């Protein structure tokens, strides 16, 4: 964004045009009780080197020394420098798909490849050119299912990210859609019996997340059977798509959507994120957002176009399929570059590292007396830990030791008091793992020495050295 300063003479000219003699007089018409008294609570001006130093120190304080086991929908993965170097090129550095799309063949090609990569990961036929984030992609998938089935009742697993659920409720607030949550069972997975009894002929779709908010993989094939028996659609949403490098894609679903931040978009305070939405081809015309298609020009050369735009809001106005006015082109491009850099085998290796480290940490934590991993279902790089202490206090203790120990589940699941959601990605080093397990052990008030810690680390390393299956 450009910095547009205004000088004293600019301000004087603007005041003259408004007929006011001072800025104070200009704002006079705003009632005084609504106006800020005193100055903004900001530090004074700094020179450029001082500003750089300020941020350098702040960054050191806030992140560098910390171990983070925080996931819960946002995943910390290493971003190769090539991603940002390519993103910052002038040809790409815009968040918008151009309205006169065909002049920007490079952008369209990148979006086409993003769509292709997403469908390869999810096992679906068609994908769109991205949405804002995983939560809005999930809500759009629900609206799509309502259009396809012409039914107006939606089921949502309680193991779907609770903020996705909140966003969905906002989306459907004014269209009379009924939303019902389906409980989870002791394994931390969707309760299949509960699902059976909740499904009926009015149900447009079930939304299930896999790996779910607890990090547990859902039994999507069994779920799909039940959902399809009632003529409803299965929407699978995925917050950690790296899992797709190891887990069988949910081909039995009708729509697979989610969050792609894991792929080359670092975690930052508040975003940005990047949503994706893929589906079976028969639902193509009900898909929200932009779609890039491949075609040939009049000389037979490969080219790209925005396709099915006749259904979008700049042409169909209030009758548009969706009201997506833009997308996350730049972040989708980051995803495309990231996935291209890692390649199929690189992605698989990375996923194996995440799996091995997370399972190792889970075993180590569960070995601490009083600590357990209560959900038996299979997990990828995130899992739930039950502790003998209040989770909030435990996290505060760990934070004093520069460890962000996870996410306090009580915030969204009152019944899961003393439960933490812990995520371990490849960014958590072996030293960090050892430090964390020790600190955890002390914090829960146990003198327990982590048994076989060294042997465990060797196990992880063996897993990482194992050749990748083709």
């Amino acid at each position: 964004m450009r910095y547009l300063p205004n000088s004293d003479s600019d301000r004087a000219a603007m005041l003259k045009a408004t007929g006011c003699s001072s800025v104070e007089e200009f704002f006079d018409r705003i009632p005084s009780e609504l106006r800020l008294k005193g100055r903004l609570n900001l530090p004074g001006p700094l020179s450029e080197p001082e500003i750089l130093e300020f941020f350098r120190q702040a960054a050191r304080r806030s992140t560098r020394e910390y171990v983070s086991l925080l996931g819960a929908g946002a995943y910390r993965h290493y971003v190769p420098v090539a991603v940002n170097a390519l993103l910052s090129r002038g040809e790409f550095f815009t968040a918008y798909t151009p309205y006169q799309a065909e002049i920007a063949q490079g952008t369209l090609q990148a979006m086409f490849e993003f769509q292709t990569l997403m469908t390869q990961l999810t096992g679906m036929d068609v994908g769109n050119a991205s949405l804002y984030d995983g939560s809005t992609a999930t809500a759009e998938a629900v609206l799509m299912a309502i259009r396809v089935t012409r039914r107006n009742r939606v089921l949502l697993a309680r193991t779907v990210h609770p903020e996705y659920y909140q966003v969905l409720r906002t989306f459907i607030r004014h269209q009379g859609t009924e939303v019902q949550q389906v409980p989870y069972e002791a394994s931390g997975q969707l309760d299949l019996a509960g699902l059976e009894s909740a499904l009926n002929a009015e149900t447009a779709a079930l939304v299930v997340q896999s790996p779910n908010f607890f990090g547990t993989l859902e039994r999507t094939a069994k779920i799909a059977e039940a959902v399809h028996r009632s003529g409803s659609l299965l929407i699978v949403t995925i917050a950690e798509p790296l899992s797709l490098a190891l887990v069988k894609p949910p081909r039995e679903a009708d729509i697979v959507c989610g969050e792609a931040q894991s792929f080359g978009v670092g975690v930052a305070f508040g975003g940005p994120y990047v949503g994706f939405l893929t589906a079976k081809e028969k639902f193509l015309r009900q898909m929200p957002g932009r779609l890039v298609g491949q075609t040939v020009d009049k000389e037979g050369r490969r080219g790209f176009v925005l396709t099915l735009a006749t259904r979008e809001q700049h042409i169909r106005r209030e009758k548009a399929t969706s009201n997506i006015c833009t997308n996350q082109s730049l972040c989708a491009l980051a995803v495309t570059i990231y996935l291209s850099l890692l390649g199929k085998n690189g992605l698989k290796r990375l996923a194996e590292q995440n799996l091995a480290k997370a399972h190792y940490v889970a075993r180590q934590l569960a070995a601490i007396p009083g600590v357990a991993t209560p959900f038996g279902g299979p997990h990828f790089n995130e899992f739930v830990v039950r502790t003998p202490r209040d989770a909030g206090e435990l996290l505060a203790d760990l934070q004093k030791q520069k460890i962000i120990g996870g996410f306090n589940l009580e915030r969204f699941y009152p019944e899961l008091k003393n439960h933490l959601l812990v995520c371990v990605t490849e960014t958590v080093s072996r030293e960090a793992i050892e430090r964390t397990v020790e600190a955890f052990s002390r914090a829960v008030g146990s003198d327990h020495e982590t048994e076989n810690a060294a042997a465990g680390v060797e196990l992880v390393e063996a897993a990482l050295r194992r050749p990748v299956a083709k």
Partner: protein
Amino acid sequence: MYPQEFLYTKQHEWIRVDEEIGTIGITDYAQKELGDIVYVEVAKPGEHVAANESFGTVESVKAVSEIYSPVSGEVAAVNAKLQKNPEILNTDPHGGAWLIQVRLADRSEIEKLMTADEYEAYIQKEEST
């Protein structure tokens, strides 16, 4: 050009009424205005359609347009051929490319529709403006 046994709407649909069943399509004028048609989507059998309300869409390379029902009633049949071959709407709009058949709920509604001669006069006026 426009069959005498059909009745027509201002939104360029036609209807042929045989006893209680009305067969509905879009006119030759409509298909020409739309251009190459690539996709058709209509209400399902058993659903209710209302006079002057949309019962589906026709998608051409230029635009997606609503199709409005000339009458109210229950959908008795839809033309399955259009799912695979929507382009027949361009080649045979008054024959093989009918869209849906409706069981009429109120026969008096057809009295408000235009005859072939009235419709031709109407589109001539449309074209000259």
